């Protein structure tokens, strides 16, 4: 049966990005804004400081399909899921949903640290849309899945973070909607538990339920999803099989990222001293989207100095595809003080031995000039570590076992013969 589960027609969402990025205003701002808007009445107020997080997205999802939604951070994936979950409404367009929706945009929404595991199962279940009777029925199953039986009457604040996540996911996994909307929830917990969650997801999928799944975990997308949708700067840029969408996305990542510097809604700072580009450079000093662990690599940041800043401090943080900050590079750390900066130039950060596990990375850069943060670009550079010479075997541990590679060796010492009488 190929009845439609979700139909989206021209979904668009416009956000205001106000100064200082605060969503709410106080009364003084209301008065001054009101006055300003009154003066600039025609047109100016709509176009000012707005950004389309989602633009004209249309698709149809038949019942029972498992669809992966991929794209860079800030591409609009989460906005799409929020609209379909009815948390926020579209600015334009419409969507039709046929069936009971369960949405999991976060694990453990509404967990209360003071309440016990038992109490939180009920509370969280109710928040996700389960009936009390339904929770009663599944209670033992949920508890068993979470592996926290012994602590069922202990306040959740005494749980380890791993236990909290397991309990939260266990509740979520027992939600039985016809349409399941999931946002990146698998990026938590230990590997064994993740495997369990993926198993649960694929069994849900086999039961013929419709799943819409956002992830940066490409292998999960490839394994689980029969269809993949790629979102790029708020627009649907590709729609095909999961496999194809992943390939398309990796290609997109490989392209030099021009967008973070042109129209990046997440970019902040007052702009007196700002970056104009960021590039990852391979061993040969050529731009490359694929770096090799264990080999030299560099990052190059071109800047524009409009305020004749004499002294600046540049900081650079790499995040892996689990969202973990893997490494930080800071001029203060190395004691480097650049001097006599021209209106334009570039900084190069050289790494003699790249200590990163295989995976995808994005770099965020921040610059301070004259005591102020003049530019913050969260997704300045993207690259992939696809091969490694870091360890003699060429193998690297998966990123969930450690965000960085640490050079080490092993030896063995036999215990000296015991002299205790």
């Amino acid at each position, binding site marked *: 049966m190929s009845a439609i589960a979700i139909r989206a027609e021209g979904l668009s969402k416009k956000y205001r990005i106000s100064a200082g990025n605060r969503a*709410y205003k106080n009364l003084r701002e209301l008065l001054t804004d009101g006055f300003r808007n009154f003066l600039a009445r025609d047109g100016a107020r709509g176009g000012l400081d707005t950004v389309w997080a989602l633009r004209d997205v249309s698709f149809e999802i038949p019942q029972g399909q498992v669809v992966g939604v991929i794209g860079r951070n800030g591409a609009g994936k989460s906005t799409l899921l929020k609209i379909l*979950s009815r*948390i926020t409404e579209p*600015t334009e367009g419409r*969507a039709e949903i046929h069936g009971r929706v369960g949405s999991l945009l976060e694990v453990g929404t509404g967990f209360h640290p003071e309440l016990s595991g038992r*109490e939180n199962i009920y509370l969280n279940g109710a928040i996700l849309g389960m009936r009390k009777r339904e929770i009663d029925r599944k209670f033992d199953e949920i508890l068993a899945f979470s592996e926290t039986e012994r602590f069922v009457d202990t306040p959740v604040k005494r749980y380890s973070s791993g236990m909290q996540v397991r309990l939260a996911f266990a509740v979520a996994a027992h939600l039985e909607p016809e349409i399941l909307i999931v946002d990146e929830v698998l990026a938590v917990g230990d590997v064994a538990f993740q495997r369990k969650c993926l198993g649960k997801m694929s069994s849900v999928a086999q039961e013929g339920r419709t799943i819409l799944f956002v992830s940066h975990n490409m292998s999960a997308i490839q394994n689980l999803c029969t269809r993949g949708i790629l979102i790029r700067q708020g627009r649907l840029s590709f729609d095909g099989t999961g496999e194809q969408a992943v390939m398309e996305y990796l290609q997109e990542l490989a392209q030099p990222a021009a967008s973070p510097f042109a129209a990046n809604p997440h970019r902040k700072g007052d702009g007196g001293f700002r970056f104009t580009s960021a590039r990852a450079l391979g061993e040969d000093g050529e731009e490359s989207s694929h770096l090799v662990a264990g080999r030299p690599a560099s990052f190059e940041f071109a800047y524009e100095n409009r305020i004749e800043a004499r002294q600046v401090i540049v900081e650079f943080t790499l995040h892996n595809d689990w969202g973990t900050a893997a490494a930080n590079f800071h001029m203060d750390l190395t004691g480097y003080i650049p001097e006599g900066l021209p209106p334009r130039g570039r900084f190069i950060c050289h790494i003699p031995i790249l200590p990163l596990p295989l995976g995808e990375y994005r770099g965020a850069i921040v610059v301070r000039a004259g005591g102020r943060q003049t530019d913050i670009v969260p997704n300045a550079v993207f690259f992939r570590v696809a091969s490694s010479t870091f360890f003699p075997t060429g193998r690297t541990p998966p990123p969930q076992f450690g965000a960085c590679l640490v050079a080490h060796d092993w030896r063995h010492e036999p215990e000296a013969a015991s002299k205790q009488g």
Partner: protein
Amino acid sequence: MAARVETPLRNEGSTPHAPAITISADRRTFASFRELWEYRELLYFLMWRDVKVRYKQTFIGVAWAVIQPLVTMVIFTIIFGRLARIPSAGVPYPVFAYAGLLPWHLFAGGLQRSIQSVVSSAHLISKVYFPRLIVPLAATFSATIDFAIAFIVLVLMAVVYGLMPTWRVIALPGFVGLALLSALGVGLWLSALNVRYRDVGHAIPFLIQVWMYASPVVYPVSLVPERWRLVYSLNPMVGAVEGFRWALLGKPVPDLQTIVMSAGVAFLLLAGGVAYFRRMERTFADMI
């Protein structure tokens, strides 16, 4: 901008075909009250959480629900009863004050919680869909627990002072309801406004204090000049406090006009509050 929601999202697991939901920006149709009913269990769980968590890790626990009105009553008795010699319509002043403080604390507590409720549930509102009205509803209603506990003390006081309830006591739930509805009505307006302007949060303690002196908590209505009486009764808490006291103590006898007026204003506030909240809730997730 408006989301059109034609039918409730929720249905029992047993329903074979859930009705379609339409999400769009071009129409203004409110989610039905039926949907609110569908989510009644969530309302219950949120209230239960509020009550459960409130006195966790406190030494004397629920006793706090009694201490607050009790201490206030003692202070009022000394200052207004003894020093200022405010008349109390033939009822011992401590009983008079406590019987006024109970509905007042119900209102003030419910109001305070509901105003903060939406902002403090930001994590829920930005991650899960449910009828947003549930949040201030649960917050307001959870104030009834403190009320019920403090009420026991009132019963004890009545026994000590030898005051027996009369048939009028059947009207009591009506006036408790009036205090709750007033709290909910004002709470809906201000909780929605608080999402946008956090100034509201700063103004609450002040607002509640002023409001108390504008209600017959420490003094009887008879102290208010006759020609101001009508304007005075626009405050829904005038009817609630006065009625509560009358239902319990038999005096002072309020005039019907005051009660009707207060109740009318309370319902208007509530109806307006629901409409305003529904209009504002569409942008909560984006603003919060």
